[in-house]
């Protein structure tokens, strides 16, 4: 049973900013679920059964960047349909804006993400994840 392939996957994504106009971009490492080598503007992952969306956000932050936001606000949801190597995937994402102290960030698992950079949201890295344009268009006015 694979999330996003056998059933609708639900994910949470926290777009982290430093309060100075920069957001945290991370490059997906070889151990990422999909889209390895692509730049991801969010920290997050799949919702687990029985877990609330906010619990998932904080758990994923802790796991992936070793810290939790000093404040966060809900941005909105987005439907994500991708064809990945011939496989149709279906994810439903819940996006948050998270204030993070850059000095508190510790990347625990370099297999999950192998490069990080703080940059303005408008300064896109290359290559970005599929559908990033849509995420950017939807939420840029909130940053």
């Amino acid at each position, binding site marked *: *049973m694979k*999330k996003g392939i*056998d*059933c*609708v996957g*639900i994910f949470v994504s926290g777009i982290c900013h430093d309060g100075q106009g920069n957001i945290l971009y991370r490059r997906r490492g070889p151990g990422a679920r999909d889209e390895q080598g692509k730049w991801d503007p969010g920290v997050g992952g799949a*919702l687990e*059964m*029985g877990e*609330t*969306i906010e619990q998932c956000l904080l758990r994923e932050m802790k796991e992936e960047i070793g810290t939790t936001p000093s404040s966060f606000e809900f941005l909105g*949801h987005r*439907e994500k*349909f991708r064809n990945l190597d011939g496989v*149709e995937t*279906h994810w*439903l994402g819940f996006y948050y804006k998270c204030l993070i102290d850059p000095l508190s960030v510790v990347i625990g698992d370099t297999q999950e993400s192998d490069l990080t950079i703080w940059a303005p949201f408008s300064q896109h890295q290359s290559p970005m994840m599929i559908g990033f344009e849509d995420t950017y268009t939807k939420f840029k006015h909130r940053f």
Partner: protein
Amino acid sequence: MIKGIDFTGVTVSFYCHDGKGNYLLHKRTNRCRDEHGAWDCGGGGLKFGEKLEDGLTREIQEEYGTKPEEIQFLGFDEVFREHEGKPTHWISFRYKVLLDREKVINGEPEKIDELSWYKIEEFPVPLHSQMESALEKYKSFLK
């Protein structure tokens, strides 16, 4: 694998109105899974690969035999309950939907005993247990 029990399920639920402050409710038959005899606004599970608004349109067509004239997204809720002793986990997307009253029929007589239009302050009892809390949350949008 069972939706809502083995993995988090996604549902759409709809408050259908006629543009004149009347809302469409239906009474659940004894053949429904639960909440027999309760009045409900309507809803159902999202299918894999289906957009939320497509799932909404399909469910409305199945239950009421017509298509939405207008759709307004209200919000979503995380629903944790128990079914036959097992914990269930659903995320429900709520919509306000304008229907053409002339076109509404009982599309699912095996699940729907009766259809009727009510002003919000005159809703019948018992209401579906999920409706009470949702009504409170979204009442400002449902006037």
